């Protein structure tokens, strides 16, 4: 459903072969990284609240191939997939998760606060709905500086019921900010079913209230996701303002890792997992002659080695020293 016209069929933007493989590389990186994360938690070697992104790999992978390094993203606690797709380096990411001084935030942020400005990954926030006003600020800065940079604001379906969502869409539309609001609708707000907490059947309909284009897409379909993201990003870059994209998806491992999924039926979970977008897309690339089994297998082996290296690096790194405790928190002495 779209409240404005988006290009479809032959008119929709198509990723070329190299881009299709790059989308798969990012999806596989996210999937393998998630598997490694759950494994290390189960082994007791790292302890953290973990919000698995397994099942939501397509959305950031198909969006981020349309972005430049200096474009920005903001994301939420379930956001490591967004960070990886934007290019946050694995070693610094894992070191941050492990609370080590070699991490993106010197180990002082942890998995809920990953930030890596060099790759445009500006913010991870644990506060539901708070990625959007901050994304507006980044987009406003880009507009004032005339940089043509765009900002992606990622959030979940539950966040669209938070006041900050409505305030942010209003202001972004009024000021024609270069921001794309990406609602990753995995159908559950923490442990609450979508229909028990949200007044409309599609979040994209809310765009109409703020005078911006809104569209619901299959967020597990790399081609559909790419085409819509490409159009919204181009529009934002050209100064034509924001878009609300509602990307339909499903999370395979609950709200927080360790959930017993009491709030969903076994059938809906197993149906979603049977439609796992990563192997489906892999098979499609091979069937369509875009990539060979050998190419993809080599790419997967390379990713596995990079993740293993990053974990080793993180575990071997030192924790932040005591003098780091107040650094980056208060103004340094002698600095006006």
């Amino acid at each position, binding site marked *: 459903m779209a409240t404005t016209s988006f290009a479809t069929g032959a008119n929709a933007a198509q990723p070329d072969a190299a881009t299709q493989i790059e989308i798969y590389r990012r999806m596989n990186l996210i999937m393998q990284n998630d598997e490694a994360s759950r494994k290390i*938690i*189960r*082994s*007791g070697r790292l302890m953290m*609240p973990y919000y698995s992104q397994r099942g939501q790999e397509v959305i950031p992978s198909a969006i981020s191939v349309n972005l430049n390094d200096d474009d920005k993203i903001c994301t939420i606690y379930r956001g490591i997939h967004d960070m990886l797709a934007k290019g946050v380096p694995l070693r610094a990411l894992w070191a941050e998760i492990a609370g080590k001084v070699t991490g993106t935030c010197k180990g002082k942020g942890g998995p809920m606060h990953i930030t890596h400005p060099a790759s445009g990954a500006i913010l991870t926030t644990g506060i539901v709905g708070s990625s959007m006003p901050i994304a507006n600020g980044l987009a406003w800065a880009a507009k004032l500086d005339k940089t043509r940079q765009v900002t992606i604001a990622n959030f979940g379906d539950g966040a669209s019921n938070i006041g900050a969502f409505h305030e942010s869409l209003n202001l972004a539309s009024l000021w024609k900010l270069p921001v794309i609001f990406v609602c990753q609708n995995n159908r559950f707000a923490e442990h609450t079913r979508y229909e028990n907490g949200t007044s409309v059947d599609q979040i994209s309909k809310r765009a109409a209230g703020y005078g911006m284009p809104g569209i619901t897409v299959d967020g597990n379909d790399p081609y559909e996701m790419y085409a819509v993201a490409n159009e919204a990003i181009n529009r934002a870059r050209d100064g034509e303002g924001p878009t609300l994209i509602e990307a339909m998806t499903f999370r395979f491992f609950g709200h927080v*890792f*360790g*959930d*017993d999924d009491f709030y969903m039926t076994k059938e809906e979970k197993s149906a979603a997992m049977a439609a796992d977008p990563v192997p489906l897309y892999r098979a499609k690339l091979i069937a369509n002659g875009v990539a060979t089994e050998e190419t993809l297998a080599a790419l997967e082996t390379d990713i596995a080695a990079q993740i293993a290296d990053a974990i080793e690096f993180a575990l071997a790194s030192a924790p932040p020293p005591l003098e780091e405790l107040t650094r980056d928190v208060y103004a340094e002495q002698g600095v006006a």
Partner: protein
Amino acid sequence: MATDIILPKIGFSMTEGVLAEWLVADGATVTEGQPIFSLESDKSTNEVESPAAGVIKITGVAGDTYEVGAIIGTIE
């Protein structure tokens, strides 16, 4: 080199868990990733996989409660 078997933290507020059952016998040869014990926390029951391949030495007692991070055995 021995690898410790550590009681993991699974879930946001878990501070301790019940080592419900060993799924392998003491002295058995296990492979990495093979489920070796089941863990009950306030939210769920999970089968925990072996962190390494080798011979398992069990020290944790089935039915007892342990804090997260406790070492309940080794793989050699």
